[in-house]
């Protein structure tokens, strides 16, 4: 996918695959890091607030940025497939990316699960492994070698089908796809939004202890929170651009 305005990639009608516009038109992040360096709050960096957090919290949050765990739970092949999957569902198509799969891998390796599973589902760790196999199998049905190296359009089709539970084949006949989708997406989203770069993107204030919040009202923000650079309402914007 193209970046910047030198190529016509930002014009939806001129994109080679006619896919919806990329949010490159959002302001470039000035302070700190966001995924792909664009964000609604270009001058806001939540990590600048670290001195206001208690010591234990500060260590925990900064480690998320500074100490990315190695992949220990997934095999190389699984990590390749699932890494592409995670970045695709989060629309992380260029650096910097939140290392979502590494964080999920660390949780699964440590056995940090959600505490429940459906009776017709395997353990969450097993679900991740089977999905990795299933995504590759589905990509092969489209004539690709594996999911990670498949065409972007093929990857999107597979993910679309996965989310709707309409994949078929060996793995998918034994695994309720919709529930597997929910297992994966719960993990992907909670890990992504636990990362300070994602907080910068959405303007989240970060840990509140011991400082606390004082301005609760509609449209108010704390003095340290960043101002939005655009008044575009994402809910309407998504509709207008046909991104739904």
């Amino acid at each position: 996918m193209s970046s910047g305005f030198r190529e016509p990639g930002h014009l939806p009608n001129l994109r080679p695959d006619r896919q919806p516009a990329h949010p490159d038109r959002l302001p470039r992040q000035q302070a700190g890091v966001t995924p792909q360096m664009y964000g609604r709050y270009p001058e806001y960096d939540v990590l600048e607030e670290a001195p206001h957090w208690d010591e234990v919290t500060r260590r925990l949050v900064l480690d998320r940025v500074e100490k990315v765990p190695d992949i220990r739970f997934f095999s190389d092949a699984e990590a390749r497939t699932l890494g592409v999957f995670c970045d695709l569902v989060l629309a992380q198509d260029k650096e910097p990316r939140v290392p979502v799969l590494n964080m999920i891998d660390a949780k699964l390796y440590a056995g940090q699960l959600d505490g429940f599973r459906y009776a017709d589902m395997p353990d969450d760790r097993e679900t991740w492994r089977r999905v990795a196999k299933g995504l590759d199998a589905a990509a092969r049905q489209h004539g690709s070698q594996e999911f990670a190296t498949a065409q972007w359009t093929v990857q999107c089709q597979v993910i679309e089908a996965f989310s709707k539970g309409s994949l078929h084949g060996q793995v998918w006949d034994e695994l309720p796809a919709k529930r597997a989708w929910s297992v994966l997406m719960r993990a992907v989203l909670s890990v992504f939004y636990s990362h300070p770069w994602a907080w910068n993107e959405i303007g989240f204030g970060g840990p509140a202890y011991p400082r606390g919040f004082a301005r609760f009202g509609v449209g108010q923000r704390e003095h340290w929170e960043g101002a939005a650079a655009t008044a575009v309402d994402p809910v309407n914007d998504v509709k207008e651009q046909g991104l739904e």
Partner: protein
Amino acid sequence: MTSSDRDFGGDDGGERRFSLRGRFGPHGLRTFPQGALRPPDNDSAFLLDVHRRAVPRERMAHYDDSYAVDLVIVGAGAGGSTLAQRLARRGWKVVVLEVGPFWDPDEDWVSDEAGAHRLYWTEQRVIGGQDPVELGKNNSGHGVGGSMNHYAGYCPRFHPSDFEVRTRDGVGQDWPISYWDLKAHYERLELELPVAGDFWPWGDPHRYPHTAHPVTGGAELCWDGARKLGIEVRVGPVGITRPMPRTAKAAASSGLRSSPRARKVWVYAASLLQGRGRRSNCPHWITRRTRICSISGVPRVPTTAEARLKRS
């Protein structure tokens, strides 16, 4: 029920080491000169160190493994630990078994949602059947304190009709007890926690010891919408001190410690209850409306605790 029975923990066979002079209202609780409800002393609250959030375990008594006990309670959550405390006050020898750690809030707790995951009890539960309900990961807690470790403090009472769902709605089962059996216990706990919330007009109308907390932007929008539809809205009861003296009652009862996190700002209703003392520091509206005290950002032991420390 005698008036001393209504006093939580007060009736412990002469072991009570101090008392404050005060008048007793019709409810059996001590009152302030102005008539506000004053919570009876919660001795457990004063076990805490002023500058630490952890239970000072080095000051706890130790017993031999051969020590004979009257009761074993499994799980040191909201129910188990309260039961143990109440029975111990009555002279029972109680052991509480807890599978998780004895948390130190300063070291083990973080102000971060993902980091709080370890407070959850995540032993795997299997859900199934015709219409399985997806659980949250935070259904219950882990360690001393149980789910109270990640409890937001919401403490509504049951509606009186909740006890008769079989009779009224033909679903579930009726309870063998009624709301009225529980009412005195609700009142007792709401005062002890203490609970902050709006006057509650539904079911058995009641008020809470502390005035309601301010609401966030999201709740404000919801409130606005409800108002337009003619739906009554009240700020729900939470067990978090609200040291904002809308009335003398609110300020007077906030000398109690409850949530360790809510300890940061204290209103101390010290010797100022007579309307003397540090009134000169007070914002005008506080002195005028409540004649109580000043608001201080510095944690300070209230007089009841000071009295206790001197005596012990």
